[in-house]
């Protein structure tokens, strides 16, 4: 939203709105955001949140399989151009990535960063446990 896009958030908990408000002068809606309460597999909730006119869709619930399913719904049913999926499991992230989904794997990203840090820090004597 800081890059002046319109962002619509769908969450199953109304409490999530408080998180969106935090750090803003006004509330989330004043800042131009949209918020819908519902679960991602409810087609009606997705439509209410505006999926039909979305240019991009991010599936970032706390469930890998939920994300993989709704991302495919966004892609195949609503023809959203850009679909990004959070998948914690590196194997599933890799395989679905090969099938044409843009998967982001925080686990793999963490492993890469840690590996890089270990290599950079080699010989410095720093040991983290």
């Amino acid at each position, binding site marked *: 939203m800081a890059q002046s896009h319109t962002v619509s958030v769908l969450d199953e908990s109304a409490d999530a709105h408080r998180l969106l408000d935090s750090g803003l002068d006004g509330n989330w809606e004043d800042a131009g955001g949209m918020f819908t309460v519902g679960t991602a*597999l409810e*087609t009606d909730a997705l439509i209410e949140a505006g999926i039909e006119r979305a240019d991009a869709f991010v599936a970032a619930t706390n469930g*890998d*399989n939920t994300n993989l*399913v709704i991302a495919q*719904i966004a892609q195949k049913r609503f023809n959203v151009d850009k679909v990004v999926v959070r998948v914690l499991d590196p194997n*599933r992230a890799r395989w679905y990535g090969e*099938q044409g989904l843009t998967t982001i794997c925080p686990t793999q990203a963490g492993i890469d960063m840690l590996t890089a840090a270990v290599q950079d820090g080699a010989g410095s004597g720093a040991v983290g446990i």
Partner: protein
Amino acid sequence: MYVLVVGGGKVGLNLTRELMQKGNEVTLIEADRRRYAMLEPQLEHVVQFGDGTELWVLEQVGVERADMVIAVTGDDEDNIIISQVAREKYGRESIIARCNNIRNMEHFELLGIRPVVSSTDLILRLIEHEVPQYGLVHLLTLQVENLEIIEVEASPGSPAAGTRVDELDLPEDCLVIAVLRDGGGMVPRGDMVIEPGDEVLLVLSPNIEGDITRLFDAPGDSFA
């Protein structure tokens, strides 16, 4: 046959037992540690602990040689992913998925997962079969011969009411065998006209009742 069952709830457990009894090799995957501990004494090595949506778990239990994969967890997203991965990554052709929430059925369809079993759907179909919907009663089912005899009332205003028997727009595999009127029964000839309120007996192959009810039902009085 080697069958992989994912999800060890009531459905998964009973399915596993039945399949074993019929002489199949079965592996049941259960992701919940406590449920697994309950299943293990009964099923021993047949049940494996693990998340059946993880590729390495599926590989460990030999998904590649499974003749059939059955996804019956309590979570529809999981069942979709298991089915999708089994088919598209591991090339399994026989897959059965369970749909827990009938509203998710459209997602299974969208992703080409079939057949899908939904208990809500099954019960609804049973209700349709058992309850005389549109005044349709199943009198006799000849399972082996694949025929049934039904009784249906010609509603006033229906396409059938006022129509000659030989001009009824009946589907194939269907024949009018009797008409009950004013407490009596008649074996109709082609020129007999069906009157509103007549009870009509038909012999037909199952699954074409829909076409019959359209014929004997007045537009607008269906309960669906």
